[in-house]
């Protein structure tokens, strides 16, 4: 099963003829993902490494039965691309693009949500279900097939934790990068809910960071609605208030959004919180009974 992307995913890549778009579309295809189409307005009829290119997402859906879209178009055109994908009947949209204006995403979110579409990102590394499908820029070789779900606001930190897990012989069901922007399509809770329902996931690792209150809300959700164990990590204990730490969303304002508050909220719900990526992997190993080596 896995979540968000799997063997049933038929992917259309929006912005496929750009440098990044073509590079990662090709990589995702080589991994085994069914990359069935690309879209670049005005370049319909061309192909990228054997992937047919269409002018419109609706054409790609009609011709190839695409059911998922990956958005690689530049920030100022990205909201438009997401609307186009949703209106063409795409069920899962994964937006990699960074730098999309927050007001654009506010409108996109409120448009997408009632339509039942799963939107991941923007400003995220994508979604990888090891052995099944890779949609985005996550380096698949760090990860391995298994039963631990991983959800994170950050790219390289996810790789670090995945690497530590793999070294302990612990594989993953799906890795979801939800993105570090103030408005993202899927929250921790959205993804935790999917992992809870996924038969192939037995434990979830949640990687949060300072800013906002999504981790606190996730803590409440875990306490009330999850039967599967969750191990967490929070980055940013040493971040000063009022400074944006790289991600637009990673900022402590007043007393809100601190790493300590998030850690306490999670621990109050019985979630074990590692103090560094290595300890997180050890806590997971402890919980699933795996052994190093």
């Amino acid at each position, binding site marked *: 099963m896995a979540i968000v992307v799997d063997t049933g995913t038929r992917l259309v890549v929006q912005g496929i003829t750009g440098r990044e778009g073509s590079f990662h579309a090709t990589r995702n295809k080589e991994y085994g993902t069914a990359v069935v189409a690309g879209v670049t307005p005005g370049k319909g009829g061309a192909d990228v490494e054997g992937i047919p290119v269409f002018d419109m997402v609706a054409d790609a859906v009609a011709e190839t039965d695409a059911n998922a879209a990956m958005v690689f178009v530049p920030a100022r055109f990205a909201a438009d691309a997401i609307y186009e994908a949703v209106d063409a009947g795409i069920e899962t949209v994964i937006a990699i693009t960074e730098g999309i204006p927050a007001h654009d995403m*506010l409108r996109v979110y409120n448009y997408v949500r009632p339509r039942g579409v799963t939107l991941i990102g923007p400003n995220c590394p994508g979604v990888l279900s090891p052995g099944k499908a890779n949609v985005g820029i996550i380096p698949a070789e760090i990860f391995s097939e298994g039963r631990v779900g991983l959800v994170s606001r*950050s*790219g390289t930190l996810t790789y670090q934790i995945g690497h530590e897990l793999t070294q302990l012989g612990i594989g993953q069901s799906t890795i979801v990068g939800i993105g570090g922007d*103030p408005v993202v399509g899927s929250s921790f809770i959205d993804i935790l809910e999917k992992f809870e329902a996924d038969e192939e996931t037995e434990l979830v690792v949640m990687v949060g960071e300072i800013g906002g209150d999504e981790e606190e*809300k996730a803590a409440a959700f875990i306490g009330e609605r999850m039967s599967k164990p969750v191990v967490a990590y929070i980055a940013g204990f040493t971040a000063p208030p009022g400074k944006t*730490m790289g991600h637009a969303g990673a900022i402590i304002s007043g007393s809100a959004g601190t790493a300590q508050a998030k850690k306490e909220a999670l621990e109050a719900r019985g979630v074990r919180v590692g103090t560094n990526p290595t300890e997180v992997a050890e806590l997971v190993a402890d919980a699933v009974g795996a052994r190093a080596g």
Partner: protein
Amino acid sequence: MDLYEYQGKELFKRHGIPVSAGRLATTPGQARSAADSLGSEVVVKAQVLTGGRGKAGGIKLADSPEEAEDHARAILGMDIRGHVVKKVWIEEASEIAKEYYLSLTFDRGEKKPLFMFTTQGGVDIEEVAEKTPEALATLHIDPLAGFQPYHARRLLFAAGIDEPGEQKQIAAIIERLYAAFVAEDAMLCEINPLIVQPQGRVKALDSKFTVDDNALYRHPDVAEMRDLDAYPAEERAAREKGVTYVKLDGEVGILGNGAGLVMSTLDVIAQAGGRPANFCDLGGGGDAEGVVDALEVITPDPQVRSILFNIFGGITRCDEVARGILEALGRLEIAQPIVVRLDGTNAEEGRRLLAEAAPANLHVEETMLSAARRAVELAGSAA
């Protein structure tokens, strides 16, 4: 991007929200002539991107142009919470009968704009929210349907505004604030206090205005309002080079790729008993040029006693980073010891390149934790 009070008021004015007449001054002489041209009583207000100006003595009433000049002399150069005052806003003094509070923020949880309105203005709004939540009227707006006139009525009735003149003026201000929020891609628009004058006129006495950095391409006029002088010199230099950098107080310089990993690296340094000197994210690049640029930003900081490179190669290739480090060592005079930890894509090749070149002062560590301990140790022994 945070705007100064006078810049926020300029945007308020553009969108029809009433503010007092005023002029900007950077010298006591300019303050005097500003006061002279405004006539009568004026207020001299420090322009800084932080709160607490009033308590720090950064806001003073002046009866005459001479007094305005004296106040400006005292306020210019003043340090308010680490911000040195370089500009003062000279504004017509206003008689105040009542002080209200009105704001529109970006509610990240609900993913909707959120209005907050209360008749308990002029104070810290977090305090109002905590002590008398019933006095705070709040309302989410659906960004797709947009603002509707009943939204203003709801806020007014909930806050208990029953004077018709006030109702009419504030309803217009609420509607215009929403228009400004959307039109300028704001993340925050706050009026505290929103005052009612003895004759009944309502206006914005202060402004807090934050604009989304990602949307500045749509607002070249607002982008030009950015005051580079308001940032520390290192952050200015970093901005020019396209490196994400935040100056901190410690002694271990940090370089990594990806915001989350860098934040995690700062924490691990603290756990190892050290203090991070900065947050520095190479981003997705990490090619030789990017590494040189980042080192140029970090190394001039006299507080930095050791440097930790924490790289997890994904799209970034560790051999590229290693080449960058070696090139930087050849091009720059770097006195501080450097600890490097490489993992992920092409990490072995990267480590091999560093081992072969074996520059003095460069230490390669296998794991993030051992690298952090080593960097802290080296910062200590270099003290």
